[in-house]
């Protein structure tokens, strides 16, 4: 405190002002200290490497959950993104409460929200563009196809409540990139970024130019990232280096036309290239990934007194993904290469109408997903070479068409929102594979079609000026994805098994209730407490198949699992968040979240060494890959009128002991990490952001991190990293 006050004196802040905020500061400091002690106690209790583990992420989360919607909605704005050291959007999203990620390498962390992952989350780009990932191992989740430097805003909505962007089963992540906008007179602007971080010796570069006039305007941007292998933190005197290097570059061009003052159209092209992206937790590395996204977006506003917005969008995303094992031991005797092409063509139209306090949004969308890919294996044995080419997907096709509507209104002290969505989903494939044993069809008929109905309803009661309570109920169904339906024998899970698709999977349905208490006061900040319960029917999981049915095709795996529906599973959890008001020098945030998921009955295969010798039924088993309890606290202080902001954040993650018995899922020790950062705005055109992540160089791994292939050890997170980012705006 003394240091802070001294520094305040040095910069000659007004004592009067200081006096005014003194009582507020005392309150905040008390609260922060309380929370800090809570978090540190937790982290020490569950220290991963023992001793005094500490971690931190230098992040201030401006959670916008304290708004009128009945569900939790977080938004991260560009200004916040710029303050962070981000090499990967999926990695960055883990700062949000109850958002975690599956790490398989240095980049492309796959987001997980409240334990829901992959297609259980609706991850869209720019309010509706969808990307079908090319890689069966999800080396390229949607979030990896956009660079943080191009993002204007990230929205994360938890639960099946927002249905307008497609079936939203467990949550929605909307990555909104920067768009060009018109200027009264012709103007041109540019901004650039250079970033470097130690440990990886990683560097990133970004440049963006935008400008135009009233009629025509444009935006062009490019990014380049080149990162080496990272080292874990210090583990008993030494660190570990993981093959995790990557190179990525992208280019985006957007051109806007103002047709009329209230109507515009934006044409967009993005090309993203990844090269030599290494994944130590997968059996292959990404040799190249070429993604092209084109879109056209028409928007009209205030078309009539009643029609407020009309938005029509069409797009196509095309992913060419090539991976191989050329950087792995054993390549000289066994070569594997897989090439996949995934194309998602779609569009949507929505119209927003408002009559007094009644707001209605309605529209339709469609997507056509085509996926084709094969794997070639070559083995040198006894002086001869044998080659086998097999398909991973054979012209697989999924078509989805949906109709949706939303309604919002308010009356008395209540606010009300509702949504409904119907989807017709149809799938087919060119597969000729048939796996039938004892009259059981494991893989046979490839056609399926489903009609899914989703709906949500929410109500918010305003108790008083500062406090409100919301209840949201939602039911959303999603049809199985390409992987779950048609993948053929690739190690796509976390558990070192090859996976086989199941063309006759049924859609899974999430029935969820969220209760949220929100308190917001200008001088105190915003606090929310949320509890949720999900009852998931026809939950898609996987069960082991015997070698007499099908043998694995991936080196090093233990066997084959096939996607199946299980009767039901439950998720429940809670979240807490506090964000201080922004209008004081001292501020901070605190978030905490926990999810507990159970499958009532699961089959456990009894192992004797590597032999399967029998099976048992496990009741009330934990669902696998559910993140443990965690909390993050962040404190910052604004010096020099906010031009100099040091931040300290501490993240504590508890041990995960609630793990799947049936899946032999290992426990994960807890840990705590401390991060520091300093943001300095040099002038209106230049800014520096520097800091240290994982200050104490702790060796730790997240529960969802995948195992290093061929071992039982998890992939560790990076150790201590010094970073610096330089921004220039013209």
């Amino acid at each position, binding site marked *: 405190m003394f240091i802070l006050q001294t520094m305040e004196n040095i910069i000659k802040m007004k004592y009067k002002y200081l006096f005014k905020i003194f009582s507020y500061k005392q309150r905040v400091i008390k609260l922060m200290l309380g929370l800090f002690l809570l978090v540190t106690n937790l982290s020490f209790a569950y220290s991963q490497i023992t001793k005094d583990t500490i971690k931190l992420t230098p992040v201030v989360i401006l959670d916008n959950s304290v708004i009128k919607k009945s569900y939790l909605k977080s938004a991260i704005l560009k200004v916040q993104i710029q303050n962070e050291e981000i090499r990967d959007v999926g990695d960055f999203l883990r700062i949000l409460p109850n958002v975690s990620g599956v790490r398989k390498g240095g980049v492309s962390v796959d987001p997980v929200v409240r334990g829901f992952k992959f297609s259980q989350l609706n991850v869209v780009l720019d309010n509706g563009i969808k990307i079908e990932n090319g890689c069966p191992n999800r080396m390229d989740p949607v979030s990896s196809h956009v660079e943080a430097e191009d993002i204007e805003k990230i929205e994360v909505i938890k639960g099946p409540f927002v249905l307008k962007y497609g079936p939203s089963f467990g949550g929605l992540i909307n990555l909104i990139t920067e768009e060009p906008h018109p200027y009264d007179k012709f103007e041109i602007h540019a901004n650039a970024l250079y970033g470097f971080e130690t440990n990886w010796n990683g560097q990133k570069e970004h440049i963006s130019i935008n400008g135009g006039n009233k009629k025509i305007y444009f935006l062009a941007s490019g990014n380049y990232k080149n990162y080496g292998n990272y080292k874990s933190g210090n583990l008993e005197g030494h660190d570990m280096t993981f093959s995790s290097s990557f190179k990525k570059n992208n280019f985006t061009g957007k051109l806007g036309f103002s047709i009329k003052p209230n109507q515009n159209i934006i044409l967009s092209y993005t090309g993203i290239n990844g090269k030599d992206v290494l994944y130590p937790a997968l059996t292959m590395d990404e040799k190249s990934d070429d993604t092209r996204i084109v879109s056209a977006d028409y928007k009209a506003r205030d078309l009539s007194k009643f029609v407020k917005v009309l938005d029509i969008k069409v797009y196509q995303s095309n992913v060419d993904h090539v991976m191989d094992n050329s950087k792995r031991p054993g390549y000289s005797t066994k070569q594997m290469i897989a090439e996949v092409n995934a194309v998602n063509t779609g569009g949507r139209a929505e119209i927003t109408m408002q009559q007094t306090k009644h707001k209605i949004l309605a529209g339709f969308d469609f997507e056509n997903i085509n996926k084709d890919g094969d794997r070639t294996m070559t083995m040198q044995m006894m002086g001869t070479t*044998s080659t086998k080419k097999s398909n991973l997907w054979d012209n697989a096709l999924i078509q989805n068409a949906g109709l949706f509507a939303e309604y919002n209104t308010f009356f008395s002290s209540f606010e009300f929102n509702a949504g409904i969505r119907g989807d017709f989903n149809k799938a087919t494939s060119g597969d000729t594979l048939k796996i039938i044993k004892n009259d059981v069809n494991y893989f046979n008929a490839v056609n399926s079609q489903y009609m899914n109905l989703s709906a949500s309803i929410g109500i918010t009661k305003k108790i008083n000026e500062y406090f409100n309570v919301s209840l949201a109920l939602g039911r959303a169904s999603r049809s199985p994805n390409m992987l779950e339906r048609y993948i053929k024998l690739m190690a796509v899970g976390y558990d070192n098994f090859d996976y086989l698709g199941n063309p006759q999977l049924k859609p899974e349905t999430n029935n969820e209730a969220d209760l949220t208490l929100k308190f917001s006061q200008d001088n105190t900040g915003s606090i929310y407490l949320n509890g949720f319960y999900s009852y998931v029917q026809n939950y898609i999981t996987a069960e082991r198949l015997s070698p007499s049915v099908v043998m694995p095709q991936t080196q090093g795996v233990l066997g084959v699992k096939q996607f199946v529906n299980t009767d039901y599973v439950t998720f429940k959890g809670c979240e807490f968040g506090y964000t201080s008001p922004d209008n004081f020098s001292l501020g901070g945030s605190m978030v905490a979240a926990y999810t507990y998921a159970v499958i009532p009955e699961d089959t456990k295969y009894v192992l004797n060494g590597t032999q399967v010798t029998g099976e048992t039924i496990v009741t009330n088993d934990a669902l696998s890959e559910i993140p443990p309890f965690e909390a993050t606290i962040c404190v910052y202080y604004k010096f020099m009128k906010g031009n100099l902001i040091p931040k300290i954040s501490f993240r504590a993650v508890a041990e995960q002991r609630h793990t799947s018995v049936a899946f032999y899922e290992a426990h994960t020790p807890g840990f705590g990490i401390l991060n520091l950062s300093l943001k300095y705005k040099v002038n209106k055109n230049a800014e520096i952001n520097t800091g240290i992540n994982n200050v104490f160089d702790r060796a730790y791994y997240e529960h969802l991190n995948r195992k290093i292939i061929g071992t039982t050890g998890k992939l560790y997170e990076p150790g201590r990293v010094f970073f610096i980012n330089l921004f220039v705006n013209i």
Partner: protein
Amino acid sequence: MKNKQLLFLLFLLVVIINFSCKKPQENPLVAETGHISFKFTHVVDGLPLQIDTMKYVNAAGNPYSIYDLQYFISDVTLHKSDGTKKVISDWKDIDYIDIHIPSTLTWDVYDSIPVGTYDSISFTFGISGAKNKSFMFVNYPEVNMMWPDLLGGGYHYMMINGKWQDSINQIENFNFHLGIGQLYKGNATNCVDSIYAFVQNYFNVTLPNSSFTISEGSTRHVEIIMNVDSWFKTPHIYNHNYWGQNIMEIQPAMQMVKENGYDVFTAHVIQ
């Protein structure tokens, strides 16, 4: 009033997120079945096989030693006197045995075996043609049994690697391998271009003295014994000096091995 509302809402919240953590429980499946477990042993002249020692002499008079012995058996079938049978295939239908990998010398069978008395046990030595496909094994150790595609593909049924002392007292290596054979045009051998057909050399073995009973909930242990010396005698005398080091491209040699293989195995049911 407001406090009551708040308390009620907090109560609701607690109910919704109630963490009534039930501990997982494992419940074994119950059925009127038992289990069977096989133990694989390898003997020469009735004594346990000793590797890397030139102490053995085969029926042709060749002194020899063995340092590798690996093979597959598949489709193990348990026969009852009423003609019914149980084919072991619920989990796996192909088993790999390797004298260097102790875990392969025991097979705790996954299948639940109906209780009763069984007359005999039979199996396929090697892998049937319908199942023996290239790339079906990609993992160690089975992958090392790969049989080149040019020679028929799939996997070796058996590899016995050793040494023998030849007619001029030199120590030579032999690869006594069995797998899919080839038929060559004319007198050509070792010339893959002249292959015109492949021959499946797997064969069925019925174990003598392999009757046993299975009772409910119990595990029957059966020892399957390979009499290694039998590969070189009855009905044919196998002479290393004649066939040389490698036989995987010599179908007549493999035919001889196949015919010698019918009586290589015996069984011992552990009471």
